[in-house]
């Protein structure tokens, strides 16, 4: 039985009882417990089921490396699957449930897979489930899907919010153990801006548990003092519960702060995601203990030795009365001693090494503990918990020499530095034969933009495996980093830890060494994904012998711990199977994040209305009060139509069109892109940008212009106004403003950097209203102010003045075919101006209209729309816009592209109008059929529709489209395809359906 001890526990506060439930059973723990500690204190050894065989799983580790103890935490809007119990702080009222079993944790039907395990080796699914063909989709795959997966996906919307923040520092230290604290003290005292991150709630890492002595003090005391000192330094920021998640190019670090995981519902954000730019990144992330591969090493009750120690020392939790220790190194003796000191029994320390000489084994011996050298574990017995272990000679094949009854096994196969953050951005590793692990290769570090090292690993994370070495290494590494930042002074104070003499470890990858296949198929490497020694060997035998192939074939290291426990052990087995050295086999790639990061935290506060920035025109509120139906246009929201009463959208759009054509329509055109282009070379620049000539445009006049990509394809259009000698105002499409502005800057900054041109995107500085319809001029006259007569302000001219007391700039341009003024006012006056126009226009029949009416009216006039008539493959010539292309200019963007054979070909589809014979509307996206099939058996086509609408003005369907031959086909009747089958017949006509001579707009 695992249970709580009567005394001890350096992190718990026994005066604060915390009640919680596991699978509905009420349990109690103390403040300071992790959920894992509290579960063990309540004798909950069985905490979950493995992924593939549904085998019983218990707690193995005590930190982020834990592969087994994953629970579903919370409920409803706070239900969170796959939460690691070893890193979950206990709080009062916590509810959790085990995962991946049915009907219950104790009786799981899925365990049938375990019985069949022999038939389900690594990669078995690639070899079967193929026949009959339909069975994969309908039978096998659904079964596999249902039995795979771990936790249950949340059903309800997230009840929490997430925050994101930026930080900058000279030195970022990741890991608040003694090495990290040493580094922070040195860098902090040097006056640098320091941020120190620690993933746990408490500081100090392993040293306080391991009984290390720093500067003559017990480690815990030194840690407390160090924190006090650091707290006083205003240039140092300490952040606990904050995991360094990823290192990216140029010293960019991602960190995940678990703000309110342990205080859910207190109003604070659940997590805070930090994006940190650091001059130097110091990883003091410690090391992770490795399991040993012996038969039955996955039975609940088999734990890592150091984790066992954590539970005893930190939380006063006993894993069981009798714990057998099995090790290949001295460190595990600390666990034996800790257990003994806690009054628990350690029947035997099984040490695979033939002799033991270090300080720790000698102490254990002195305490009267039994040490069995040269031995290993042949087998652990037990189902849902350990009952006994069988010992054998490590050198042999596993003949049982002795059996020892016990409740727990504490294993240690050595330690692997946490090299993840070092490796994320290209840091290379070297194989250390002394400790049998990969550690950072300081000669091949991750480099920053300047090619110099940007990450330094410190302490255990750098392979300095004793406290004494780690402190020295931390000081040296920090000095190196400071030097890189230009601080070349000796640190003022350096702390040091008391040395403990440790004998060398001895790599043990299989226990016992000569184990046969039967035992090997009971030795787990990856506990969660059920990958065994035999699976890795099978992969190698079948040729999946690159480490990446092995990983993918067996799923080794692909579980939620990403191989923190299994990778090195698996590599060693693979190396052996390939007859190669471990470094030759190499590792798989370490990818961010170090531990999984909640997607909500990565998304941050970008949710709902503010999911993306929302751009609103100054008149937006007015539109809302009028019940506008909006459509997104880029980040803008534009009124699509303004339905009145019970109108459908089609009805309101028709009303808006008719009213504009017959009386007066007002359009909020503020989203229209407005870019000022200014400077001595502005004219020359615009002549390159536009297909037409803009430099010759007289001041006061407007000209329609087209812009093409270098390939020659039409990318944007709009009216350009010449403001003064050196200033032009370029109107772009609403969706194109930012893109075109960037396009201009691209050319100015990268290609024509010596041209004197300045650009400014002033789209949001101005509100713009289109006053459209036969009564347009009357309205402006009624507003009073500047002269807007035909004579003073003819078509395609602009003028500054006032209207109704507003300072305005008025353009006589028209996108509807009606008499039309586009009027710009300062954005701050937009709402008032808009309201004034409506007030004055009421008796003239003024009504607002939306984007759909705008689109219909321009289609009735045969005006093209970027994005409808164009799609990135259309050149102006296709749209009969050759007139807007200057023949005189030596060059403009797209000119050369348009000269290429295919673009210059006569066979291109060209713009025409279409009228259905029956007056119906051609469906969006329809193609014009041509006889026969092409070489690939596809129906031939000769054109397609680009804009198709019901025209309220004409009372029938009208369309623009592209057809081979273009206007030369006028009068032909062609077939448009439909999704329902029967094609629609339409006649090729002139695309200008309304007021062909332009009499209305020129009045």
């Amino acid at each position: 039985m695992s249970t709580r001890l009567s005394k001890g526990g350096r992190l718990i506060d026994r005066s604060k009882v915390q009640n919680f439930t596991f699978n509905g059973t009420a349990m109690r723990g103390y403040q300071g417990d992790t959920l894992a500690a509290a579960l063990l204190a309540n004798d909950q050894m069985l905490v979950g089921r493995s992924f593939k065989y549904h085998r019983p799983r218990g707690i193995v580790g005590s930190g982020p490396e834990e592969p087994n103890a994953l629970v579903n935490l919370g409920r409803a809007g706070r239900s969170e699957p796959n939460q690691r119990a070893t890193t979950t702080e206990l709080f009062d009222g916590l509810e959790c449930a085990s995962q991946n079993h049915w009907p219950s944790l104790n009786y799981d039907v899925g365990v049938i897979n375990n019985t069949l395990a022999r038939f389900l080796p690594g990669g078995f699914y690639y070899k079967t489930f193929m026949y009959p063909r339909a069975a994969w989709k309908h039978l096998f795959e659904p079964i596999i899907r249902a039995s795979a997966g771990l936790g249950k996906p949340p059903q309800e919307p997230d009840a929490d919010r997430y925050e994101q923040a930026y930080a900058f520092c000279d030195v970022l230290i990741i890991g608040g153990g003694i090495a990290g604290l040493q580094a922070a003290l040195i860098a902090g005292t040097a006056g640098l801006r320091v941020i120190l991150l620690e993933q746990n709630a408490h500081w100090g890492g392993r040293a306080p548990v391991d009984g290390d002595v720093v500067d003559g003090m017990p480690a815990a005391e030194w840690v407390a003092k160090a924190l006090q000192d650091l707290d006083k330094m205003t240039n140092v920021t300490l952040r606990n519960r904050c995991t360094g998640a990823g290192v990216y190019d140029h010293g960019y670090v991602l960190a995940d702060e678990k703000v309110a995981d342990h205080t859910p519902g207190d109003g604070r954000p659940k997590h805070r995601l930090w994006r940190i730019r650091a001059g130097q990144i110091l990883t003091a992330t410690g090391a992770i203990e490795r399991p040993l591969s012996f038969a039955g090493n996955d039975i609940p009750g088999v734990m890592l030795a150091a984790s066992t120690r954590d539970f005893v020392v930190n939380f006063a939790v006993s894993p069981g009365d009798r714990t057998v220790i099995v090790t290949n190194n001295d460190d595990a003796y600390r666990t034996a001693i800790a257990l003994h000191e806690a009054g628990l029994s350690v029947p035997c320390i099984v040490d695979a090494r033939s002799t033991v000489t270090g300080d720790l084994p000698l102490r254990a011996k002195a305490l009267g503990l039994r040490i069995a050298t040269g031995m290993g574990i042949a087998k652990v017995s037990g189902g849902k918990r350990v009952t006994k272990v069988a010992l054998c000679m490590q050198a042999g094949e596993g003949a049982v020499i002795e059996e020892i009854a016990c409740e727990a096994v504490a294993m240690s196969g050595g330690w692997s530095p946490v090299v993840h953050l070092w490796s994320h951005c290209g840091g290379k590793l070297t194989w250390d034969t002394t400790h049998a692990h990969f550690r950072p290769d300081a000669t091949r570090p991750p480099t920053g933009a300047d090619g110099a090292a940007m990450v330094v690993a410190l302490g255990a994370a750098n392979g300095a495996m004793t406290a004494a070495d780690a402190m020295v290494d931390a000081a040296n590494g920090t000095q190196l980093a400071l030097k890189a930042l230009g601080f070349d002074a000796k640190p003022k104070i350096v702390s040091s830890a008391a040395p403990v003499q440790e004998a060398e470890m001895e790599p043990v990858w299989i226990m016992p060494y000569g184990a046969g296949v039967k035992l090997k198929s009971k030795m787990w490497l990856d506990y969660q994904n059920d990958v065994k020694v035999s699976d890795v060997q099978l992969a190698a035998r079948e040729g999946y012998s690159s480490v990446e192939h092995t990983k993918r074939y067996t799923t080794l290291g692909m579980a939620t711990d990403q191989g923190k426990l299994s990778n090195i052990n698996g590599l060693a087995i693979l190396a052996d199977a390939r007859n190669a050295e471990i470094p030759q086999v190499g590792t798989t790639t370490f990818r961010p994040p170090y531990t999984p990061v909640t997607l909500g935290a990565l998304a941050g506060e970008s949710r709902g209305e503010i999911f993306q920035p929302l751009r609103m025109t100054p008149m937006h509120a007015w539109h809302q009060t009028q019940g506008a139906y909006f459509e997104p246009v880029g980040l803008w929201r534009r009124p699509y139509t303004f339905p009145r009463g019970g109108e459908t959208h089609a009805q309101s759009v028709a009303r808006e069109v008719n009213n504009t054509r017959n009386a007066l329509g007002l359009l909020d055109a503020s989203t229209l892109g407005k870019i000022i282009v200014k400077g001595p070379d502005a004219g020359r620049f615009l002549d390159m940008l536009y297909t037409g000539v803009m430099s010759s445009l007289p001041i006061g006049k407007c000209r329609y212009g087209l812009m093409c990509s270098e390939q020659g394809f039409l990318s944007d259009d709009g009216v350009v106004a010449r403001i003064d000698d050196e200033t032009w105002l370029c109107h772009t499409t609403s969706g194109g403003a930012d893109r075109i502005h960037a396009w201009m800057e691209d050319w100015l900054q990268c290609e024509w950097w010596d041209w004197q041109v300045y650009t400014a995107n002033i789209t949001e500085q101005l509100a713009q209203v289109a006053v459209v319809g036969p009564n347009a001029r009357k309205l402006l006259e009624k507003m009073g102010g500047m002269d807007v007569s035909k004579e003073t302000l003819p078509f395609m001219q602009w003028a500054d003045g006032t209207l109704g007391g507003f300072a305005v700039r008025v353009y006589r341009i028209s996108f509807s075919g009606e008499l039309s003024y586009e009027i710009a006012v300062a954005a701050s006056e937009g709402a008032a101006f808009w309201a004034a126009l409506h007030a004055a226009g009421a008796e003239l029949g003024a009504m607002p209209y939306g984007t759909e009416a705008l689109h219909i009216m321009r289609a009735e006039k045969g005006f093209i729309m970027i994005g409808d008539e164009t799609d990135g493959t259309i050149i102006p010539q296709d749209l009969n816009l050759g007139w807007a292309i200057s023949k005189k200019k030596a060059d403009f963007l797209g000119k050369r592209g348009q000269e290429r054979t295919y673009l210059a070909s006569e066979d291109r589809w060209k713009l025409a109008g279409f009228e259905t014979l029956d007056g119906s509307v051609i469906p969006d996206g329809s193609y014009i059929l041509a006889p026969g099939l092409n070489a690939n058996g596809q129906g031939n086509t000769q054109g397609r529709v680009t804009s198709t609408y019901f025209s309220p003005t004409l009372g029938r369907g009208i369309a623009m489209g592209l057809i081979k031959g273009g206007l030369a086909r006028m009068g032909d009747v062609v077939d448009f395809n439909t999704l329902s089958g029967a094609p629609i017949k339409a006649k090729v006509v002139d695309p200008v359906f309304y007021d062909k001579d332009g009499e209305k707009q020129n009045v």
Partner: protein
Amino acid sequence: MKRYSVFAIAKEALNYHMGWEKAWASPEPKKQYDAIIVGAGGHGLATAYYLGKNHGITNVAIIEKGWLGGGNTGRNTTIIRSNYLQDPSAAIYEKARSLYETMSQDLNYNVMFSPRGVMMLAQTHHEVRGYMRTAHANALQGVTTEFISPARVKELCPILNIDGPRYPVLGALWQARGGTGRHDAVAWGYARACSAMGMDIIQQCEVTGVRSEGGVVKGVETTKGFIGCTKLGVVVAGHSGQLAEMAGFRLPIEAVALQALVSEPVKPCMDVVVMANTVHGYMSQSDKGEMVIGGGTDGFNNYTQRGSFHHIEETLRALVETFPMISRLKMLRQWGGIVDMTGDRSPIISKTPLGNCFFNCGWGTGGFKAIPGSGWAMAELMAKGEPGALAEAFNMWRFKEGQFIDESVAAGVAH
């Protein structure tokens, strides 16, 4: 080649699986081959496979600088669909999709092709019109797609937020026969089949030069020495520019990092593949239970296979908004692959200025779905020396002539 089956597994189980043979041999290179394929990604391996299967050419070496399938083939998000807009694209992707349907049986290797359905959300009126166009084009191309209503979208994928507020779902282009497959298995299945036909798969061997004589290819220089060949097929995705340089010409290909990520596995909650172009992201759930999520490409060229973090953030914003329930799932792993982009976002399957040297590249962000079709077309090109109907439009001279096959028109996101 020993056949895989449930019976073979049962038999082997009694023997603790000691009797399985190697899935593919790892021979030393011969001096000369009828054909060499550079690049053992999906496209290279499929090319070799169809050279043997369709054209009887089996004296073939496939040369790979790393481990087979380790390029983008082993890094992608495995979406398979053929609802492309332009005729040549629809033809080759539909050919590929139909070959995927029988690939497991054809290769005797379960590639787990799962036609679970792919939907592309329309979230603006403009997008609705775009997908209506694709649906009309597909109707003529023999590709079965339909434009479905928001209600049907919700029915097919209940975890989807169709109500906005920013971009309410207005409908979707739905290809019921699209889906996903197991990427590694595609590479491994082809490799095993090629090896069984007697072809040599040579891993850990980098091609460092192309040798030619009188404008005709003679073989390749490699880290394992010179290897001669009559015909050379170069299928190296992101490294195509480098190989083209070795062969003495330039290609309009850029290499950029494209990223993807997976969540921790959860029980099934999403049966279909959803792509959301307006907000820019896509997601499906793997058989293992992970949510498989695709990100964007960097705006600069590089070979690092990493990519910038802000793309991950942007993608997740989009997807958490689209699938609110995922906000409490966790990102397990992110990675990147170097994709080979052409100017029109369509591939190149082409003869080249060098005689008997053929290139297949430019699949960019979306070539996993094309693997069998591309291999089929490339094998035909190499065997006959002239492109068949599937490959013809994808010749490399189209960029000079301006005859683009522009799919960026239809596809906003990488996939």
